[in-house]
């Protein structure tokens, strides 16, 4: 079963793989991300399946009212067009979601920095 934290990691990798994306940042409050990660590690430890961090989980996954809202926060390379890259990121996230579950996904992507 895929948890939302695992889903977030999957989405983060997809976003960062888009040409022109320099890096991503936590879209949710940093404290929330750390708390979620710690909680997962604790649960995994109890279950005997503790594993090292599987990468950043920077894409926020919010569920409610029969829909999923994804929030991504990225840095775009200055030699790539921000609008073109943002559209590619939103497309990449939507593609991952479509392959993962049937819930309608609303994708919010923000360029917080241009490198």
């Amino acid at each position: 079963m895929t948890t939302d934290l695992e889903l977030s990691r999957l989405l983060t990798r997809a976003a960062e793989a888009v040409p022109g994306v320099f890096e991503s940042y936590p879209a949710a409050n940093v404290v929330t991300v750390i708390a979620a990660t710690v909680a997962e590690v604790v649960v995994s430890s109890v279950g005997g399946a503790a594993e090292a961090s599987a990468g950043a989980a920077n894409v926020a996954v919010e569920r409610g009212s029969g829909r999923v809202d994804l929030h991504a926060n990225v840095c775009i390379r200055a030699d790539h067009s921000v609008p073109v890259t943002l559209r590619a990121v939103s497309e990449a996230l939507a593609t991952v979601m479509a392959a993962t579950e049937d819930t309608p996904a609303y994708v919010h992507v923000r360029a917080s920095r241009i490198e």
Partner: protein
Amino acid sequence: MSDLPVPGASVPGVGVPAAGAPASAPRDDLDGHTIEELSDYLDAGRNPRNTLIEQSPGCLIALDGLTRLRAATQAMLAAEAEQDARDDSWIGNVLNNITREARAGRDIPISDPDPRHSLSVTEGSVRGLIRAAADATGGAFVGRCELVGDVTLPGEPITVNVTVSVAWGSSLPVVTELMRARIFAALALHTELAVVAVNITVDDVHAVPAVPAPSSSSSATAATPPTPAPPATPPSPLPEDDK
């Protein structure tokens, strides 16, 4: 300790900011960090790595600005210290502006054909973009940068106001035209803003470091700043009141 003066802080070797220098920005301006902390972090070579700083776009934009400011001002500071003409208040103001401008600010919308996709670029990142484009002009350095108009509404006319310090002896028309062209180009590539004007105000002139001259060169030659190349493409039509 930082190489650069920070408002309200002493700076070894280069005096202290002028008495009128503005106070430090509030502590939470950059995701809980001050410009002084970021300056010290830069001094330490960003080591040990501070995850909270490295994951904060605002902090990273401010670090970018600090890095460029240092590169641009190190020689300038030395030259002005030699002439005892140093005015730290200008640099203090630049640091405060970097802090203020690095904040995310308003979300500037980017269009997407899919109604379930919502895209935006932060005002802070656009101000950082403008600052980087202008600083790259050579012979000038940005003091303040602002976007005037409702950037949250697509198609709304937006004016960019920039204040700069220019190296003594530079051609102001050449430097400002090149800077204006770079800013227009950067905004056209990275945003969908309807930019109607880029107003550049030269509000300071800084010294140019003396270059060790060859045996027969005159001091006048050594003091001449590099002349920026003309813009590759002509800038867009500009309002008459542009400086």
